[in-house]
Every structure is written in structure tokens, then in C-alpha cells.
């Protein structure tokens, strides 16, 4: 693997127009990138350029503009293919976001392949995006639903797998690659091997991983993988699902309507080829182009450089928080997590912490982070979460810590 030079977060910030606007009269310290990232000018320009020079509906038009629009969409598809190292761009389906991608698999694969006696296995760490669709489809099909438990550091207990397999025919194993709450990096490769031993499909939710590290579907050994553009410098409203061609071909469509057909007659409709079979209606064209530009932007910086930088930031933040005896932080050691830190301030509700920090121009998230089963496991109603990205600088973590002192003084 080539190693990129260390990234210069201070220089990269100049690419992000949002940082030109103060928050509460102070420079914005945006520590909520795990929820959604900020947008670089390069991506915004690519979308504007597409609308201004290449915009028409894709695929069917024979005029030049339609061809240019189609080329924009398909070039973006190829960029997503390269990003996740998929064997073929036919296997890359544009969706609204990772949640929709997972719903696609849950409905289009699950409804046909799950039934009583089968077991769907997700994790206790899971974002609701990769939890609720599976729970819902398991209930609808009569399949069982089981959770891989966590240990006290917030890492998956693989020693529980055999016990789970004893309770039913495991047909689906679904996990996040990186936890959005704790930053835990999950052993997807090992889970994929186990899933295939059981005769199950392996579904990876990479929404939280793809912005920060190289995600390689062939190395992970998964069967489906879902990502969202908005968490990785791309626009909202577009994401991608990768799936193995033979599985996608065996599946019914998820959404049906325009564009996804081969022929439509009064008594029968046949489906188009991959990926079109799963892309009903007009595609999010400009969004896909923006997604492609975001991938170019991240590639230029280098995913290994981004990962190293986040790693440094997480270690720095955890060290700073460890010095405060009235702060509890959750999750694995910095060496095994992405740039996400969840914590609580003794005696101060996360909402109040986040509110005080907001007055200081520091944006963090407070709540259950769409992980209510995990919050229950941790024995808390909510946590504070600070998350970092390529434009985060250590001074922002210092401002976070200073704000925690203010909150502590005011409430506790």
C-alpha cells in the first residue's frame, strides 16, 4: 500500500466554506462529523458545474446533453466501484443513503430467503440503520433475531457466536464496520468467514467507516456493503450499495417503476440489467457527481493519511478526557477505534453539556446516536459524542475540554 504524506488539517480547512462563518461569534469547532461531514468547495463546484453544463435526464436521451449527464453519473459509479474495490461497476447501486441500501437488501433478499427457523444476527453496537430493517424483516418472515453481545470495552464478543448459531439457521449476519457511537472497529473479516461457514450472507454497514479508512469489499469478504456520501464530504441524498452480482441477480427488485425495466406489458414486466434493476426512477444525478468529486478529494489526501490523523486526534482527546476524573468515556482504546469519542460528564446531562459547548462555538452531539440498544448496555440514557475528521485540529479538542470545565462548574 502506498503511504500518503501526513495531511495538513489547517490547510485543508481552507477548502471548506462553512469555516468562514463564525458560530456564536467564535470560530466554528465542528466536532460532529460522524453525524455528517462538512463539504469542500471542490465537491460543491463539481455539482454546480454539472447543473450548469451537463444537466439532462440520463440514459434515454440521444442528444449530447443527455449523453454528458449519463457520462457524469456513470463516471461517478466507477469512482464508487474503485473506492470499495468492487469487481464490477454493475454491482454498484446508487441509493439515497446507507439506510436505504440496507433496506434494499433486507426487503429484496430477506423477504424471499428468510422464514421460521432462520436466524438474523446483528450486533449490540449497531446503528438503528442496520438493526431496525433486520428486526422488521425477521418479524415479518418469522425468522429469529439475535444480537452479538459486547464486552466491557465496547468490542464484539466473538466467543458468543457458537452459542448464537445453536439457536437457529444463521442466514444473515449484519454489522457496522465502524461503530458510530464508540468508534469501535469491528472484525468484519472474521465475521464474514463465520457467516459463510453458517451458509449466511454478510452485510456490512460502512457508512461510518468509508469516510475514514480504505474499505475493500474483497478484503472484507462481505456480500453487501452500504455507504452514504454525506458522511464523506459528499452531498446528502445519495449513497451506494455494493452487492455480489450473483446475489443481486437472484433478487427481486426493491423499488419498481421507471428506468428499472426491460419490457412492460399489461400482464407482465421484466426487469432491466444490473445495476438498473435496482434504480427505479430518475437517479440522484448531480448528487452522484458530487459523490464522485468527494471521492476524488479524499483520494488525493489519501485514506491512510486521514486514518492516521483521526487516530492521533482520538488518542489526544482520550488523553485529555482521562485527566478529568469527572468524565467517563466509553469504548475501546485509541489504537482500536476511529475518530469518535463518547463520554459523559458526571452530574451534567449531555444536552446541557452540548448546549454550553454550543455557546462556545463547539458543536458536538448529545443523545442516543441512533443506538438505543447500545445505550441500554452502557447503562446510560444518552452520551456526548465528539467526532473528528480531516479538517479537525487539536485546538478544537482543547476548546471542547475547556467547555467541559464550564459545564461542570455551572451544573455539578
Amino acid at each position, binding site marked *: 500500500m502506498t503511504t500518503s504524506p501526513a495531511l495538513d488539517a489547517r490547510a485543508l480547512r481552507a477548502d471548506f466554506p462553512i469555516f468562514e462563518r463564525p458560530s*456564536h461569534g467564535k470560530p466554528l469547532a465542528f466536532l460532529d462529523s460522524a453525524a455528517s461531514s462538512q463539504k469542500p468547495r471542490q465537491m460543491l463546484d463539481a455539482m454546480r458545474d454539472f447543473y450548469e453544463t451537463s444537466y439532462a435526464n440520463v440514459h434515454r436521451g440521444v442528444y449530447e446533453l443527455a449523453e454528458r449527464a449519463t457520462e457524469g453519473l456513470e463516471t461517478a459509479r466507477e469512482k464508487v466501484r474503485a473506492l470499495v474495490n468492487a469487481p464490477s461497476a454493475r454491482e454498484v447501486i446508487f441509493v439515497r443513503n446507507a439506510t436505504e441500501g440496507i433496506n434494499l437488501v433486507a426487503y429484496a433478499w430477506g423477504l424471499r430467503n428468510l422464514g421460521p427457523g432462520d436466524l438474523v444476527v446483528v450486533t449490540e453496537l449497531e446503528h438503528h440503520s442496520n438493526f431496525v430493517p433486520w428486526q422488521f424483516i425477521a418479524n415479518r418472515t418469522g425468522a429469529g433475531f439475535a444480537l452479538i453481545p459486547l464486552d466491557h470495552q465496547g468490542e464484539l464478543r466473538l466467543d458468543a457466536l457458537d452459542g448464537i448459531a445453536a439457536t437457529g439457521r444463521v442466514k444473515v449476519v449484519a454489522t457496522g464496520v465502524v461503530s458510530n457511537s464508540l468508534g469501535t472497529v469491528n472484525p468484519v473479516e472474521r465475521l464474514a468467514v463465520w457467516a459463510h461457514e453458517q451458509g449466511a450472507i454478510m452485510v456490512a454497514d460502512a457508512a461510518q467507516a468509508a469516510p475514514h479508512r480504505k474499505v475493500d469489499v474483497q478484503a472484507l469478504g462481505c456480500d453487501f456493503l452500504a455507504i452514504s456520501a454525506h458522511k464523506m464530504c459528499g452531498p446528502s441524498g445519495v449513497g451506494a450499495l455494493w452487492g455480489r452480482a450473483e446475489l443481486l441477480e437472484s433478487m427481486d427488485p426493491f423499488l419498481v417503476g421507471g428506468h428499472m425495466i426491460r419490457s412492460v406489458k399489461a400482464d407482465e414486466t421484466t426487469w432491466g440489467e444490473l445495476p438498473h434493476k435496482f434504480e427505479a426512477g430518475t437517479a440522484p444525478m448531480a448528487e452522484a457527481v458530487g459523490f464522485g468529486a468527494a471521492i476524488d478529494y479524499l483520494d488525493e489526501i489519501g485514506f491512510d493519511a486521514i486514518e492516521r490523523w483521526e487516530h492521533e486526534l482520538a488518542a489526544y482527546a482520550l488523553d485529555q478526557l482521562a485527566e478529568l476524573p469527572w468524565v467517563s468515556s466509553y469504548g475501546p482504546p485509541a489504537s482500536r477505534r476511529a475518530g469518535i469519542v463518547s463520554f459523559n460528564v458526571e452530574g451534567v*446531562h*449531555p*444536552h*446541557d453539556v452540548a*448546549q*454550553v459547548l454550543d*455557546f462556545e462555538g463547539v458543536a458536538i452531539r*448529545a*443523545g*442516543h446516536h441512533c443506538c438505543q440498544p447500545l*445505550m441500554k448496555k452502557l447503562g446510560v*440514557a*444518552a452520551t456526548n459524542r465528539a467526532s473528528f475528521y480531516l479538517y479537525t485540529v487539536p485546538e478544537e479538542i482543547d476548546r471542547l475540554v475547556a467547555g467541559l470545565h*464550564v459545564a461542570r462548574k*455551572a*451544573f455539578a
Partner: protein
Amino acid sequence: MSEFEQLYREVILDHYKSPRNHGLLDPRDAYAEGQNPLCGDEISVTVRFGEGDVIEEVGFEGRGCAISQAATSMLSDLVKGRSAQDVALMPKDELLGEIGIPLTPVRLKCALLGLGVLKVALHKAKGTPLPEEWGTSAADITLN
């Protein structure tokens, strides 16, 4: 006055740190509990009636942000001695006026959780009307 002082007025911090009417009543004539699923605020409210449907005692417990807990504490003082019917029809602005701070839509939910739970408790005990804004979202309130 700083933004912090505008939101977390001294009286809010005082009610948060020393809540009035804290603790559930036993025996009690009415009870309800509720959660704000967005932020995990929790409130349980108990009521004891005097003559007719006059609220004699209120006791609450909960955990959550300063706004939710302080607002419920202020509410508990506000409703004592009033009839269940009167409180059931109490406009939320009366409580918000008492709280007297600018609230964003998210924090408004924190501030009004206790009032919603109290109205549910009165509804269960006395059949008083549920407020309109709880008509569709009453599912957010766990009934017990």
C-alpha cells in the same frame, strides 16, 4: 448577559439543583410517566387530590437535562391548589412564561415533557382532556 445566563437563568439552575416537590407520593391518586425519546429525558409524576379534583400535592422524579427537570419543578409549584380541569386546559405558554427563557424547538420538548406527563396523569385519574399536541404523540408517553 451571556447566552449561557439567558438560557440557564439563576432560577432554572436553582430548580434544577434543588427541585421542589421531588419524590413520588405514596399513597397517590394519579400517576404517569413519560420519556422524550429524542434525548432520553424521563419524568414520573404523582398527584394527590384534595376536595373534588383540586390538586393538593404533586411529586415528581426524573432524570434528564436541566431544562426538563427545572421546568417540571416549576410546574409542580404552579399547579398546586388548582383543579385538574383547570390544569388540563392550562396553555403551555403559561408554563413557558414562568420558565421565561428563549427555547429552540428541540429544547421546547424538554421544557414541556413534565406538563405533558402531568396532563396524562390527570386524564387517567379524572378523565380530563389530553392536550391537543399529545393527541398524536401520546404514544411517546408511556402510560402506567
